[in-house]
């Protein structure tokens, strides 16, 4: 058995692709609503990323397990039902762990239900693959999503607050860039990250001389 085949059986690639090559935020540009709205601090970004990753993991697992029992005609409604169940769990869990966090994330926890990334993974991947691969895919996508949110939240909190995870980084007298906390700061930061990552991708393509396959 070649290493490539072994990889395919274990599904390492399904895990890796969500983190870098098909990163949900930076490459697929999916689920922009929470990415722009709650990435104003690193804590919010981390919590949102983990909540989404958890919901994605559970929904992918369940959808993949039930993929042969769900009638094709009502599959979207079924997926939404499954996702909504886990979003409710996450909603109550966050409320129990930290009321402040629950307040600062606001409606965006409930809105995980309509995150097109989760529905997209359920429809495009979990409903067609084995449970093990669906779990790895959800883990990779979830980690990729969380990392991307952290990238945004870190920059925005650093410039907008002079802190990281609530700990002051700059010495006293730091002048906060208010715009970074505002919604427009989310757009600026996301655009800057997309610019950087596309630039890196282009340089890589120019170096290897081949165009990377477009992610499905």
């Amino acid at each position: 058995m070649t290493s490539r085949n072994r990889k395919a059986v274990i599904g390492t690639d399904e895990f890796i692709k969500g983190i870098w090559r098909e990163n949900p935020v930076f490459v697929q540009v999916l689920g922009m609503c929470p990415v722009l709205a709650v990435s104003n601090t690193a804590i919010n970004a981390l919590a949102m990323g983990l909540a989404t990753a958890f919901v994605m993991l559970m929904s992918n697992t369940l959808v993949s397990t039930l993929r042969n029992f769900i009638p094709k005609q009502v599959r979207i409604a079924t997926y939404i039902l499954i996702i909504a169940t886990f979003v409710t769990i996450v909603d109550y869990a966050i409320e129990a762990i930290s009321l402040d966090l629950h307040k600062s994330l606001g409606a965006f926890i409930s809105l995980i239900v309509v995150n097109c990334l989760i529905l997209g993974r359920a429809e495009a991947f979990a409903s067609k693959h084995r449970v093990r691969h669906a779990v790895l895919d959800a883990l990779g996508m979830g980690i990729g999503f969380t990392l991307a949110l952290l990238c945004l939240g870190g920059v925005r909190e650093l410039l907008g607050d002079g802190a990281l995870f609530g700990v002051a980084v700059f010495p006293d007298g730091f002048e906060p860039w208010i715009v970074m906390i505002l919604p427009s700061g989310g757009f600026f930061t996301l655009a800057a990250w997309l610019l950087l990552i596309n630039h890196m991708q282009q340089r890589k393509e120019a170096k290897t001389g081949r165009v990377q396959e477009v992610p499905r």
Partner: protein
Amino acid sequence: MSAKNKTLEIDTSPHIVSGASVEVIMRNVVFALVPVCIFSVYVFGLTALITLTAATLSCLLTEHVLCRWRGDRSTLGDWSVAITGILYGLTLPPALPVWMVVLGGVVAVGVGKFLFGGLGHNAFNPALIGRAFLQAAFPVSMTTWYPALGAERFAVLPPSTFTLPFASPVYDSISGATPLAVIKFDGDITAATDLLMGLTSGSTGETSGLLILAGGLYLIARKMMNWRIPVAIFATVFALSGVFYLIDPAAYPGPLFMLFSGGLMLGAVFMATDMVASPMTSFGCVLYGVLIGALVVVIRLWGGLPEGVMYAILFANAVSPHIDNLIQPRVYGTTERGAS
């Protein structure tokens, strides 16, 4: 997109018959701005000189570095980025910390001009993009005004000018309020003659209505500026604020005050007339000017901010492609309106 692959050069209108090139026009705009700069240094002293220099240099440097990074030759020679830099400097409060000035300059050219594709592709006036970014990022510093004609303005710098990068600026207890802020928050009216001469507090270069008008007239006389835009703006502001003044003179400022206060002169003459971001047809320019004038009056009279020229112009910049879409000139040689 790359300038190297161009085989055929197509210029969009306005086609200027005089044979003037980009360089010549831009150089003349710089000449028209020089008196305004000198006067602002006279009114606000050394700190205005430093602000203007930092603004211009940061814009020039950003343009140069980005051009070389893209692999093209540097476009510093066409003077356009010098105008962006000077105009941007003229819109800033004189005592703004230098590090903020430089940051805004990088944003103005990098985001406002370069990300759109450089000269001729900018959808918005780059100088105003830089200022809008600073206004959103540092609202306090951007609205702390240095008093005009201070006694020691050439000897002592305000402590805020050389603040360490990323640090909060410290301001003197003496700071002036702009005529617009005074009327909005205190209800006092500054004399129109002071406004006209520019002996009031405000952004570095927005105070002297006379010199700005003189620069604009010079450019219009040399046919290097579309006179319809400033005239439409002035007429709209005058008429609209005049109507409200007649309705209730106690609640609304008079039309002359509206014309000569704040950044209206500078904005209408030098910013709204940005050739790239304004409409192409004459009638379109009039519409564009009316839109800016109406927005300025609305923001000033009912908005939360004392001044609205910047947002009015940026908004009109965003609308100007749609104005061009609405008003299609008749295609030469046809009788009906050109089919789209």
